[in-house]
């Protein structure tokens, strides 16, 4: 379309395109973009080292927050499990008769908030301790059993959250036979605080790394633009619009993100595999089964989309600033 000459002969290409149906024009539009995208992939090979470095930086920068995310996710599921299994240890007052303890046990069993009550008899506990500790003779020297009777109370399913369990503990402590009860919620609270902290750090770190990625991509694209200065000038001289000139650079940024995302997947998997080895050695000591959950498919796609988004954003910033500054003179 001519701006200055209204009746300038409409070009062949354009007139042909006008005859195309909207559907076909839509398809052609995308075919054209894909062609350009693939062409810009070829551009990457012109400067393979710089391109690869940028992709690697992009991928590795995303690896750290992604791995942290996976770890936090796993810790959350573990802590949820542990929280579910929370038990209340109820210590019985010294001098309470075994019959009274049994009555208490039975009363508690009828309580709807309680799933199970196990009585650890103090005599049995002392016997076990005597056998296992090797302090047998020293214990013989004691005239009375220093251990209290203990009831292990498992709250019913709905009363296992730390808040409900705390209320149950308070309720249990109202019984006259009970000396005190112990619900180890403190470590749970601490774990939650730690998880919260980890999430905050993760957020901050991710933000900083994303910023760094955008700046690095933007800088690489800036160098690409400067190395093609002459070509850009010539294109401007023969009437190329800014968006036409920008497009290949935007595609390049997109490819950086595309490949960087895949690098992030691989590096994250590798890192998690390595961490899992270490975690397994620890959990084996505690005889507990533990499987590190990796990235789900949708999480992988999010990482990928993120990488591509960052690549595009970086190139967009570079293109905005630098293509405008290159003018023929």
């Amino acid at each position, binding site marked *: 379309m001519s*701006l200055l000459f209204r009746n300038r002969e409409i070009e062949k290409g354009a007139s042909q395109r006008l005859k195309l149906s909207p559907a076909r024009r839509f398809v052609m539009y995308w075919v054209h973009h894909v062609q350009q995208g693939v062409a810009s992939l070829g551009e990457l090979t012109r400067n393979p080292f710089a391109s690869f470095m940028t992709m690697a930086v992009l991928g590795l920068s995303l690896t750290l927050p992604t791995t942290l995310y996976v770890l936090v996710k796993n810790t959350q599921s573990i802590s949820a499990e542990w929280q579910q299994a929370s038990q209340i240890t109820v210590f019985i007052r010294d001098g309470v008769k075994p019959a009274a303890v049994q009555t208490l046990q039975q009363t508690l069993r009828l309580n709807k908030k309680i799933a199970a009550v196990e009585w650890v008899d103090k005599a049995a506990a002392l016997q076990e301790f005597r056998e296992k500790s090797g302090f047998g003779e020293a214990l013989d020297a004691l005239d009375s059993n220093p251990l209290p009777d203990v009831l292990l109370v498992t709250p019913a399913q709905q009363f296992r959250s730390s808040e409900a369990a705390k209320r149950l503990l308070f309720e249990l402590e109202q019984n006259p036979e009970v000396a005190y009860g112990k619900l180890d919620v403190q470590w749970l609270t601490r774990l939650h605080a730690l998880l919260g902290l980890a999430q905050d750090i993760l957020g901050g770190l991710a933000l900083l790394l994303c910023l760094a990625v955008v700046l690095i991509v933007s800088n690489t694209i800036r160098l690409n633009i400067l190395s093609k200065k002459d070509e850009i000038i*010539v294109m401007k001289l*023969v*009437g190329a*619009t800014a968006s036409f000139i920008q497009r290949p650079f935007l595609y390049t940024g997109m490819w950086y993100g595309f490949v960087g995302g895949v690098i992030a997947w691989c590096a994250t998997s590798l890192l998690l595999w390595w961490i899992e080895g270490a975690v397994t050695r620890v959990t084996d000591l505690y005889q507990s089964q533990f499987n590190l959950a990796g990235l789900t498919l949708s999480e992988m796609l999010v990482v990928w989309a993120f990488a591509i988004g960052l690549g595009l954003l970086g190139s967009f910033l570079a293109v905005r600033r630098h293509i405008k500054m290159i003018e023929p003179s």
Partner: protein
Amino acid sequence: MIQFEQVSKTYPGGHQALSQVNFQVKPGEMAFLTGHSGAGKSTLLKLISLMERPTTGRVLINGHDLRKMSASQVPYVRRDIGMIFQDHRLLMDKTVFDNVALPLIIEGYSVQEARKRVHAALDKVGLLDKVRHYPTMLSGGEQQRVGIARAVVTKPPILLADEPTGNLDPKLSMEIIRLFEAFNQVGVSVLIATHDLGLIARLRYRTLTLREGRLIDDGLQPEAQP
């Protein structure tokens, strides 16, 4: 076609490259722009192609005031103007075909759609056999002709040339001028800036003469004037 009204151009730094220039090039006219080095020839052409903007006065193309053209419209203005440079500004890492096809690709042609026109343009400048070559494999005169093919491939109504014969010997220079004449004969308005007075003297075309930014002569040939 091209009209200058009281156009002055002062570069940042205070140098006045053009002052109060008035002239008009009619549709289908061919004219030369001459003057010593630094007289303002390139500046004048840059005001037409919107590489520079006038400080005062206005430039019109086909009656359209170029002051009204926004930055985003500049590319579309340039598509109506074929430009030729002394250093021809070819892309050295692209083939002759790709260089000449560039303006068409920019207008949205596919390579297949562009092929016929590129071949036609290269045929006109006599370089059809060099279509697969790279500019570095060509002589100076041939490179300049590739530049001309690129300028005319979209059939613009206006051709501007800045010292197109600057690096060429008289024989090659004349060949280039003959090419411009051929385009002019099919209705293209042509404005050629050159300080090669010997070349102009052999031709009978309107010659605009600049001296220190002022249009001092708008006649046939500088020598013919008192």
